[in-house]
Every structure is written in C-alpha cells, then in structure tokens.
C-alpha cells in the first residue's frame, strides 16, 4: 500500500488518493482522448482538406466531450451503497471521523478546479483552431460550468430518491442553461446584476451540499419517505382492483423488462424534447435571439432519438439498470422460461419503447413548431388542395414506422454480446462497434476521393450485398437449429423473429421502392432493399438465446 509514500497522511490526502486509485485507468483514457482531440485539431490546421478537416473537427469535439463528461462523473464521487440500492455519496466515508465540511469540500474544490482548468485549457488552446466561435465570455462560461458541477454534486449526494433527484437535476440544468444565455440580454439592463445572480447560484451550492450531506449523515433520508409509502399504497390499491394476474409468463417477463428499462429512452428523450427544447426555444424567443429555423429543429428531432437509441442499445442486455451487464439475476435465471423467451421479452420491450419515443417526438415536434412557427415548411403547392394535409399526414405514417423500426434495430442489434455476461466480451463491444464504424467511414471517404475505387465498388456492390446476406442467413439458420436442439428457443419464437425480419425487410424495400421511384433513381432500389435486409437484425437475434444460455448455464 502506497499511502505512506503519498506523504499526506491526512484525510484529504486519503480521499484524493482514493479517487486516483479508483479512476486511474479512466484518467488515463481521458488523457488519451484529450490528446487525441488536440491532435485532430493540429492535423486539421496543418494540411487537411476542407471536408476532412470538418470531420476531424467533429471527432476532436467528440473526444473532448466524452473525456470531459467522464471526468465530471469521476469527480462526482458517487458510489453504490452496500445493498446496491442507492447511488450517492460513499456511505462508508460518512462513518469516518472526518468533518462533513471536509467531506464536502475535498471533492468540490479539487473536482471543480480540475473541471474548470481542463475546460479553460481546451477552450483556450484547442477551440480557437476548431471553429470561429467567439469565446470571449470564457470566464462567464467557466463560472456557469463550475456552478453546474457543484450543484450536480450537491444533488447527487443528498437526494437519495432517484426519481426526485432526476427531476430536480433536470430543473437545475435548465436553470443553468438559462443563466448561460443571460449575457445576451439587451444591454440597457445594468451589467452587474448578471454576475450577482451567478455568484448567488455558485455560493449557495456549497452550503446546499453541506446541508444535504449532513442530513444524510444524520440518517434523515433513511427508509422510505412518507410520500413514497403513500404512493406505494395507492399503487397497491389500484393494482388490487385491476388485472390481478399476468396472462402468461411472457407477459410477466415483459412487464419486468418494461419496468426496469422500458421508460429510459422515452423518458430521457421525452424530457429533452418536451421540456428542455420548448423551454430553450421560448427562452430564445423571449430574449430576442433568433430561433433556429423549423427545418433545423425537425432534423435535430429526427437525429437525436436515433443517436440516443444507439447509446442505450449498449445497455439493453442488462436485466437491471443498476446492475452490471455481466450479472444475470438469480430470480430470473431460475424461472422456468426458455432463453428465447427472455430475449423475446426484451425485443418486444424495445419495440414498445421505440414506438413510445416516436409518439413523443411527434408531440414534441408539434409543440416546438407551435412555438417557433412553421415558416416555409408547409408551403408546398400540394398542401393547398383540401386533401393535401391529410395526404401529408398519412404520408408521414410510413416514415414514422421506418423510424420506429430503425430505432428498434439500434436498440436490439448486438444484444447477444451483452447477454453473454462475460466481461471481456462486454468490454470489447465499444471497440468492435467503433472499428465497424471507422471501417465504414473509411470506405465512404475512400469512395469519395478515389474514383476508380468507387467505380469498382459500385460495380460489385450488388454481388457483395448478396454474399453478405447469404452469410447472414446461414449464420441465422445454424444458430436457430442449435437453439431449437438445445431447447434454448421455441419454434414460435423462431417464427416471430424470421417473420419480423422478413416483414420489416419487405416494408423497407417497399418504402425504398416508392422513394426511388419518386426521386427517379430506380437503380438505387436493389441496393437499398438488400442493404435493408442486411442491416435489420436476424443473425443477432438468433445468436442471442444461445448467448444467454452460455451465461445462464456456466
């Protein structure tokens, strides 16, 4: 043990050494990411082409954001309690003979210092080369960031109830966003009061954290609160009258999956789309800054859920949001259900979540457009006829279905890897996916730059797609046969998976055919149809029950 070598045999030293010890590897990766970010920018400014330079800029920004957010989480100083029930301040530290002030100040001061320094360094050194954003308000932004960080720490430590915490956190984030745009307000208001508001926010964060932690230490937050007990009882009464039993084992398993994870994507996205966006847009309108055009808003609303679904798809294989992916809870493993049944429950849950997400998106889009005004969006000639809007609406339905299918595919693809429960496989998932993405990216870039390569690629594309498709179907058949033989999946589940794949594939092909016909490029249809069948998950789903069997029967 190297505590002595640190030299600081003080509680502060011990706390810092512990943060260092726990997150050594994370800090290393963050350092690498920050260096990569700087490197990309350097590459961009020294002889990269225009479009490639843009890409490098985006990559650099992503590296920085990823590293930075992770850094904030590390210094957030949170831990699961002994019974894996709450995420909050490490409970064992509350029992040490250390004053609450020190427990609060060490992570806040050091964490805040690191967070602000890294941000300042990056915006000072890297950002000017990245884009032409004027960062003259560096001090302002840094202080808002510090305040946000401190408030996040305060809330994470003191509010044990997860639902309440999420709501309050969201409110705090919104408040800080509003504060961020304060300097843009008209100049006829005295300029000092903005700083006073920020100073008040900043100064109240530390006492709030101190009070929260003190209450935690005194056990005021122990046990279910009166409200949660009342809520539990109300739900019990409601459940007593309603359907008392699940219709089938599958229904029960679906209920479990939905309760544990179903509302993550719709909830997070719904929160952003229905709360944050309208608030921001209203704020922009009120402040007088121009709001983005409605097309841009719609594009963001299209892209963000898809992106979020990719992120959440990593975690779909979990059986409980707060457990690690390699744990298969015992109370699930001993249920008399085939592995295929568990997988189907997850698949159906993902579908329901996707559908709900897009319904929320439609509602949010209407809401935001109502705030911003539709502008030139609906000025097409077709809409002037009486049937026009109806046709437009019905035309949107296939698009929505396509988006639901796409989101579902993002969530579900590669679920087998997570279900294996082997940590080395799980750790390789992001590596595998990034490699695939980079490979595809390199292919596209090469195709754009080298014309010969593009010609040969397009010439052989149909053949390549057919070969890949055949391989996929072969893998799926082998996996299904193995699964059926080992009782890992029932014939009915196989039917659903294959039927679903074919059905979605046909739908995508039909839709693509219609679109290709509209844009007058019939040659494209074959590629899109084959690509759709290739991208939609079949082999993934066939392997998933076998992967779960490998986990369940070690």
């Amino acid at each position: 043990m190297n505590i002595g070598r640190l030299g600081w045999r003080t509680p502060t030293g011990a706390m810092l050494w512990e943060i260092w010890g726990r997150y050594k590897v994370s800090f290393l990766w963050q350092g690498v990411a920050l260096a990569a970010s700087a490197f990309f920018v350097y590459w961009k400014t020294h002889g990269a082409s225009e479009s490639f330079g843009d890409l490098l800029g985006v990559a650099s920004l992503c590296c920085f954001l990823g590293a930075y957010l992770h850094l904030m989480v590390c210094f957030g100083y949170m831990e699961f309690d002994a019974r894996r029930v709450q995420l909050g301040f490490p409970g064992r530290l509350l029992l040490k003979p250390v004053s609450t002030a020190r427990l609060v100040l060490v992570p806040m001061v050091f964490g805040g210092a690191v967070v602000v320094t890294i941000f300042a360094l990056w915006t000072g050194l890297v950002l000017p080369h990245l884009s032409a954003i004027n960062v003259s308000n560096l001090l302002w932004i840094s202080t808002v960031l510090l305040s946000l960080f401190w408030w996040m720490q305060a809330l994470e430590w003191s509010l044990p109830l997860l639902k309440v915490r999420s709501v309050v956190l969201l409110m705090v984030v919104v408040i800080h966003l509003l504060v961020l745009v304060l300097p843009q307000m008209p100049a006829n208001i005295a300029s000092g009061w903005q700083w006073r508001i920020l100073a008040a926010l900043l100064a109240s964060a530390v006492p709030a954290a101190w009070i929260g932690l003190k209450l935690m230490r005194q056990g005021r937050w122990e046990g279910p609160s009166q409200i949660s007990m009342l809520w539990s009882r109300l739900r019990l009464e409601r459940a007593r009258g309603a359907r008392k039993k699940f219709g089938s084992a599958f229904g029960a398993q679906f209920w479990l999956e939905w309760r544990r994870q179903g509302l993550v994507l719709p909830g997070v996205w719904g929160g952003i789309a229905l709360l944050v966006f309208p608030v921001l847009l209203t704020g922009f309108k009120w402040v007088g800054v121009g709001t983005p055009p409605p097309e841009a808003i719609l594009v963001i609303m299209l892209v963000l859920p898809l992106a979020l679904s990719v992120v959440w798809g990593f975690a779909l294989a979990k059986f409980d949001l707060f457990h690690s992916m390699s744990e298969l809870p015992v109370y699930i493993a001993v249920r008399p259900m085939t592995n295929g049944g568990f997988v189907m429950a997850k698949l159906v849950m993902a579908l329901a979540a996707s559908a709900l997400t897009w319904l929320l998106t439609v509602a949010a889009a209407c809401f935001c457009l109502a705030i911003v005004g539709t502008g030139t969006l609906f000025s097409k000639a077709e809409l002037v006829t009486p049937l026009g809007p109806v046709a437009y609406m019905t035309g949107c339905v296939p698009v929505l279905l396509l988006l639901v299918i796409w989101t579902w595919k993002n969530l579900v693809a590669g679920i087998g890897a997570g279900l294996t429960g082997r940590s080395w496989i799980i750790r390789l998932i992001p590596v595998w996916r990034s490699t695939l993405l980079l490979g595809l990216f390199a292919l596209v870039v090469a195709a754009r730059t080298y014309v010969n390569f593009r010609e040969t690629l397009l010439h052989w594309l149909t053949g390549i797609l057919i070969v890949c498709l055949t391989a996929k179907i072969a893998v799926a058949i082998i996996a299904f046969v193995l699964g059926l033989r080992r009782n890992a999946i029932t014939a009915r589940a196989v039917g659903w998976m294959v039927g679903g794949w074919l059905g979605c594939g046909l739908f995508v092909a039909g839709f693509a055919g219609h679109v290709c016909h509209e844009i007058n490029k019939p040659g494209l249809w074959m590629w899109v149809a084959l690509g759709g069948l290739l991208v939609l998950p079949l082999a993934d789903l066939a392997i998933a029950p076998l992967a779960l069997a490998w986990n369940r029967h070690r």
Partner: protein
Amino acid sequence: MNPMKFPSPSSAEAVIAVSGLSRHFGPKLALDDVSVFVPRGSVMGLVGENGAGKTTLIKHLLGSLQAQTGRVRVFGLDPVLDPVGVLGRVGYLSERRDLPGWMRVDEYMRYTQAFYPGWDEAYAGQLLEQFRLDPAQKIKTLSQGQQAKMGLLTSLAYRPELLILDEPSSGLDPVVRRDILEAIIRLVAEEGRTVLFSSHLLDEVERVADHVIMLQRGRVVLNGRTEEVRGGHISAVLAFAETPVKAPVVDGAYAVAGYGSEWRVLFGGTRLELEAAAALIGARVVEERTPTLDEIMVARAGGKGS
C-alpha cells in the same frame, strides 16, 4: 392414519440423480467425483464447511452450472438442456436471497405466479399473513428475515415437487427459523414432495432430514440415513494406564482431545473396533455415547473433537 402413507424413501425413484460430478474453477477443484441420489419424498440435508462445495452442487441441480464431467439429472431431465421442464417443478431459495429490491412484495408474487400454473393463491395469501409481510412494501426495505420469508413464500406457493434451499436459516433469528422449519415440514407432510437443504445448523438437519450428505473439500465423506450416520460414530473417553507424552494416535479416530490420562475421541466404526483400537495403544473405554452430527462434522473437518 396409516403411517405407510409416507412412502418409504428407499423404495422410490430418485428425484435427484448426480453421478460422478466433478467441477473445476480454474485450478481449484470445487467438486470431486460427487454422487448424490435423493429419492422422492425424502428430506436430504447437505452439510459441510464453507467452501466445501454445497452451493456449487446446488447450482448444478438448477442448471446454473454445466457438468464438466459426470451426469446431473433432476426428475430424469438434464437441467441445462431442459430448464423449463426442471425449473417449473423446483422451488429454490438461494443463500443470499437474490430478490429484486425494486419490486413490491405483491408485485413479486404476481410476477412469480405467472410462471407456475400450479400456484395456489389461497395458500400464498395464507403464507403472506403467517409471515406477516406487508404487500405494499418494497423488497429492498425488508429486513433479512423478511426477505428470507419472502423468498420462501414464492418458492412454496406453487407447491413444487422439489424444494432446494441453500442455507435457509443463515443470518436469521430463532423465531424466523422456526417459521421456516414449520413451512418446510408442512410441505414434506404432503405426498411426494422432496426437500434438499444445506445448512450449518446441524441440529435442524438432525431434526428434519432423514438423509444426510457431508461434503468436505468437494468430496462426499458421509452419505446415508441420519441415524445410520450418527450410529456409525462413537464419542468415547479413553483412559490410559500410562499417561501419554503427547496426543495419542488412535487408529480410526477423527478427533482426539484431552489432557493427562483421559482423552476423548470421536471414532468412526463399531464398539468392538473401538475397543480393539484402544487396546492396541494401551487404553480402555470408560465412557461412550452417540455423537451429534455437529461433533461428527467438526471432527471430520479436522477440528479438535470435544
């Protein structure tokens, strides 16, 4: 009531049939050529020190572990190849309870009920009242004893043909232990129900189990009816004519302890064998009795016998 209503275990078919099971975890040998046969209607006690392999054996029965060598059959089926067929007839209570903390008590009952067609709603309600569990409470707020009762409730309510309990009484106060034992016995009193439970509380095992298996470092060292296992050992006091200089070595004894000229031994064998072994080293038997399972286990595990 005809006592023969309780089927004689030795004549019935085996609900659990494990033969030649071995299991490695890396370099460590957790189970070494273990064979277990549990006939229908019997109560089998699985005893052994911590780390002897009891939980590993139980996991094999549930299909959580695959047999590396040997065969595992429950109800004649392989639990890995047919999880539905086996697990649908088995009730399981794990050592660490492993319950979903986020569910309420009534939600967990509803969830479990959906998987077992044989769920007896009236019996479940009766157990709920008897165990004094509040259906509106979240499982993570229940105490250890209440969680054990919850786990037991959801394993008993569908009247499984086989009940597997891993340390059901560990960490529980005597009142809860009493409730659990009563519930187990009520299940056994019905025809055809089989129970396998592992426990450190050997007086419970002696009361309730009619067969006992003892595992030591992954091997089966004792296997038989409870009275036979006890009857096969003698706890005796040997008096030496000449005071031995150091602890005497008695051939066939598992533990020797004492001081001076009188030493207590735990001997495995008949009385005649004991007298012969004692005579060999110049001692005679002055006191003897049947040892408890506790004493047998501690002695065989290498501790100092009383």
